[in-house]
């Protein structure tokens, strides 16, 4: 059996346009270059091909996917291909009419982001007025009886609000709450010091979350996504490179994850040029870190290599300068020391907001 594994999940980044300016945004820092978005017909074809390839879960993501004028048609097509269809939205552009049309088109689930439990805190992070609009969106989502996941990216400025965030999720009738500690890529890497919680903050939040997970089991599912720097355990990133996830960016480039463009030397095939099945099976980028042939020590002989797949390739590149190294988050990595120095939490660090102007400035050739 030398064939490629079967993908289960497609993350479709429909656009990088977004009304929010979140300082932890996971879109690439040079996102302003990706303006030539796939057309309705191209996304429809991609969803059909993904379904034939075995994909079950579709995440319509962004940027802000609600900015796509063809979102209803895309949802409708995804459901016609029997994909479990999830809308990942900031919520500020939703209204009852749009939500009704999404529901009628067959949307299965909505994941709504909020930035904090208090307006001031949330809008400091989002960079625009947005908190009340999001709470209103959550109420409309509840009114139309959509299943709702509330997603909160957790960092130094909102980590003390975990109890209030849990209470808010219960009040809004969410089924699931993701307390997703910041993953330090893209804009979050630019803002690392400002976003990094202290050890004490993190341990406290984790303990509260663990207790709440048990307390609300069956009522509210709570996921606590680890902070790599403070957890000390390498994560099984994307469930392994090219194993079950496909991410397609707004211009149609096919990637194993949304951060992979940070690794130099990888070129991504586009769905504009090739069939998705061909790209999944034999594009060089998709095969670059598939399986374990690429591994060096300490991963190569590690008994955990089938569990954590050596951690995250992007993080290995960012921290060790080589994407084939063990993720330096791992204590066995020869580069683990660097993680220590990067745990510093900086209340004085300035915030760099994600917007087109800053994207242009940060991605100028050196």
């Amino acid at each position, binding site marked *: 059996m030398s064939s490629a594994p*079967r993908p289960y999940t497609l993350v479709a980044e429909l656009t990088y346009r977004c009304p929010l300016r979140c300082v932890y945004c996971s879109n690439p820092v040079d996102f302003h270059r990706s303006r030539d978005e796939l057309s309705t017909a191209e996304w429809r074809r991609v969803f059909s091909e993904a379904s034939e390839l075995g994909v079950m879960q579709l995440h319509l993501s962004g940027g802000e996917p609600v900015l796509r004028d063809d979102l209803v048609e895309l949802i409708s097509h995804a459901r016609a291909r029997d994909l479990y269809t999830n809308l990942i939205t900031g919520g500020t552009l939703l209204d009852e009419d749009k939500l009704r049309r999404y529901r009628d088109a067959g949307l299965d689930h909505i994941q709504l982001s909020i930035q904090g439990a208090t307006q001031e805190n949330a809008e400091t992070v989002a960079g625009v007025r947005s908190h009340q609009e999001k709470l209103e969106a959550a109420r409309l989502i509840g009114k139309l009886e959509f299943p709702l996941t509330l997603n909160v990216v957790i960092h130094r400025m909102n980590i003390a609000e975990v109890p209030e965030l849990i209470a808010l999720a219960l009040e809004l009738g969410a089924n699931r709450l993701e307390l997703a500690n910041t993953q330090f890529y893209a804009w979050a890497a630019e803002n690392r010091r400002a976003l990094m919680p202290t050890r004490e903050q993190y341990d406290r939040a984790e303990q509260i979350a663990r207790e709440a997970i048990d307390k609300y089991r069956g009522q509210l599912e709570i996921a606590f996504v680890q902070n790599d720097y403070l957890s000390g355990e390498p994560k099984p990133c994307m469930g392994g490179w090219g194993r079950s996830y496909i991410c397609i960016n707004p211009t149609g480039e096919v990637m194993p994850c949304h951060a992979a463009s940070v690794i130099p030397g990888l070129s991504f095939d586009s769905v504009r040029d090739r069939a998705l099945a061909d790209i999944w099976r034999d594009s060089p980028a998709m095969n670059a870190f598939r399986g374990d042939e690429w591994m060096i020590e300490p991963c190569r002989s590690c008994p955990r290599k089938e569990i954590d797949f050596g951690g995250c390739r992007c993080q290995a590149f960012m921290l060790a300068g080589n994407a084939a190294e063990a993720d330096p988050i791992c204590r066995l990595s020869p580069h683990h020391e660097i993680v220590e120095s990067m745990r510093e939490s900086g209340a004085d660090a300035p915030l760099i907001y994600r917007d087109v102007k800053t994207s242009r400035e940060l991605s100028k050739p050196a």
Partner: protein
Amino acid sequence: MTANDQWRPRLAARARLKFDPIAKQEMLLFPEAALALNETGAAILRACDGMRTTAEIAEELSRNYDRADRDVLTREVVEFLSTIRARGLLE
């Protein structure tokens, strides 16, 4: 949480059954994950229409699957349904 006699289970709004034509098995899909079901599991969940009690579901299955021991089967059905409910996928 235990199932009582009056419970008439049905799938939660966020959960959906889908036949996977590649692995040729029924899947229970929900946000961020999926459960692969064996034939019995799939038959149980298909019967969860909010109308039938767990006892009625078990009885129907014992007919379909030619299982004599109804008490054991009922216990297994309730156990399975409780597991799924604990994940918030049944109401």
